[in-house]
């Protein structure tokens, strides 16, 4: 029973982190129909921002996520203004290739400036802290990240459903020309969506430095999983991303423990394929 609970909590905690990584990607994809291939590298940059702030200024990731979120908001908006906007409307492949190029630049820039070394923050407030729930041991840094994820996703959902900005984003996603005719400045919406997408992944990265090593390749597998989460949950759907991420976290965790650790990612992709075959729009697609 202890093992079952432990595996369950591991899956939930990992799933919630995946949900926050995927939320920004989901918004960008859902609203603009743009696949941000540099999403994993955005996560990596967020982690580096938090790491260096922690390293030089001794600020704990519990607080430095604000800086990494803000930095990535600006970076996301700048990416839209300088790269995406110029590639939109040219060909479907143009933004995709542009963000792929950006991912290469970011990864190699960090490799060059910071070396490929693995960097772990030591002495953080939550380091090494655990709590026991029914015999299962939960890591407090991971729990904190998951809790932040839940709160942020709730805020994001509330913003999309209950605010004028959220309605404008949804309207732009449904029909950008009609939205523009209704007086919505779609250009600004796109800019904001890219910024929010960046901020989500920046905040996640900022928090993750409390328990995960930072290195230039750290975002690769997270970004792959984020793509699966978005496609499984439905493009642009925050509840979809949350549910899909939890499903993926649990599948990964239970398969890893009860079947074999080496097939856990294979199981994730198998579930994704099965759901997509039955429901191509994903669980909650717009």
């Amino acid at each position, binding site marked *: 029973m202890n*093992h079952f609970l*432990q*595996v369950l909590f*591991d899956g939930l905690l*990992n799933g919630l982190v995946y949900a926050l990584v995927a939320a920004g990607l989901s918004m960008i994809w859902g609203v603009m129909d743009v696949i941000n291939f540099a999403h994993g590298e955005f996560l990596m940059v967020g982690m580096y921002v938090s790491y260096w702030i922690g390293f030089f200024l001794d600020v704990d990731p519990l607080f430095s996520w604000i800086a990494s979120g803000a930095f990535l908001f600006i970076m996301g908006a700048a990416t839209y203004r300088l790269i995406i906007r110029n590639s939109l409307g040219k060909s479907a492949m143009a933004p995709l290739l542009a963000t792929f190029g950006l991912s290469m630049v970011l*990864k*190699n820039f960090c*490799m060059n400036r910071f*070396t*490929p*070394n*693995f*960097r*772990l923050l*030591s002495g953080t407030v939550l380091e*090494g802290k*655990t709590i026991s729930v029914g015999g299962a*041991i939960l*890591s407090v840094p*991971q729990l904190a990240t998951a809790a932040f994820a839940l709160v942020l996703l709730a805020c994001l959902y509330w913003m999309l459903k209950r605010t004028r900005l959220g309605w404008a984003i949804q309207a732009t996603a449904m029909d950008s020309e009609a939205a523009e005719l209704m007086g919505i400045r779609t250009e600004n919406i796109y800019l904001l969506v890219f910024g929010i997408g960046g901020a989500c992944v920046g905040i996640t990265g900022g928090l993750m430095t409390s*328990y*995960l*090593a930072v*290195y*230039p*390749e*750290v975002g*690769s*597998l*997270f970004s792959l*999983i984020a793509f699966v989460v978005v496609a499984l949950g439905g493009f642009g759907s925050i509840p979809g991303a949350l549910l899909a991420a939890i499903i993926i976290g649990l599948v*990964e*965790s*239970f*398969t*890893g*423990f009860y079947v*074999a*650790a*080496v097939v*856990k*990612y294979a199981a994730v992709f198998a579930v994704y394929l099965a759901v997509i075959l039955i429901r191509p729009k994903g669980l909650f697609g717009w």
Partner: protein
Amino acid sequence: MLRKIAFTVVLCVLGALLLTGVAVAEDKVIKIGALFPLTGPSAVSGQNCLNSVLAAAELINGAYEGFDVPLAATEGLLGGYKVEIIKADHQGKPDVAKSEAERLYNQEGVFAVIGSYNSAATKPASAVAERAKKLFLCGASSSAALTEREYKYFFRHAPTDAIEATEFTDYITYLNEKKGAGIKTLGLIYENTEFGKHAADEGKKAAAKIGLEVVADVPFNNGATNLSSEVQTLKAANPDAVFGAALGGDYSLWVRTMKQVNWLPKIAINFCTGYQNPAVQKELAGDGDYFMGGMSFSPELAKEFMPEALKVQEKFYFPLANQEFDSDSLQEAVMLLVLGQAIEKAGELDTEKVREILATETFVSPLSLSGEVAFEPGGQNIKALSVITQIKDLKYNTIYPEKFKNAEPVYPMAPWDNR
């Protein structure tokens, strides 16, 4: 008019002579490929290996007094040839390693390639060399399968996983017999790659020989986002000893995850992994303490048995890498120095002659723990030696065998909440 023609002819001749001179100068270079994972999950180790080869090349190319290392006192090879290192990145991918090896031999025209750290990359890259009848020298890749292919142009310095696994089980036998350790069960956690799988296979074979029961066999995908279920599987089986084969970031993730779930075996011994990398250990700080691993170099070991390695580290390696040698990277430098000696003995850049010398002669190697290097058919270094170390406060203390021992092992590992 005649004057003009004569002037033009003289100018052309002078120009031609000048160009020939340049060509001659360019010819006084021996190109050696350095094929490592400079990006990707193993990039930390790959960069260290490359820096190590560059340090060895600098040592060969200049004339340095005060080093009791072959080729240090003379400038270059064969009376003035400089070694030029051509860098190549295989990203940890076997297919890229193969194509980069082809590029190095066919387009860059390298005389030999040194590499490639990941056994999975070394395998196809050295197959390219074998087909092309070109030399491939391998420092750190430890998969035993590499030297079981009976290749003629492949030479490897590192002890194989088979040698290390036997050493691990010898040590367990020693602990059981001399210290009453009562180690009866074994868990294995390893990356699901050529290296990891071979290391695990050799670990199982060695365990079977001493009657150690394997209760957990946990391969994982490298570059994982988490190792929760992997560590849970180990914890559920609760083996007395664990053999680990996890590189770089995966190693630190493994250690941190064990801390999260508050579990440790009695001993954890690592094949050539993130354990050996001082940069990884520095980041892990105290969490890395009490783990063990097979090594053929550590600064502590070198003080007594390999003093020249420390001098080379100080003068050539540290300025490039800003850190100490590690067991893996040092072996790549050794292979360049061995190749240099073979070229000197051959007296010319003839691949066949150099290969013959590599295959038959014994080389002085103050940068190796045994002090010598000699290869058996298939290319394995029969002088390869490694010891078992245990890390504490960022120091790799040698705990086995007795001959090299400089500290008593801390056994069982200190629990997480008592550090």
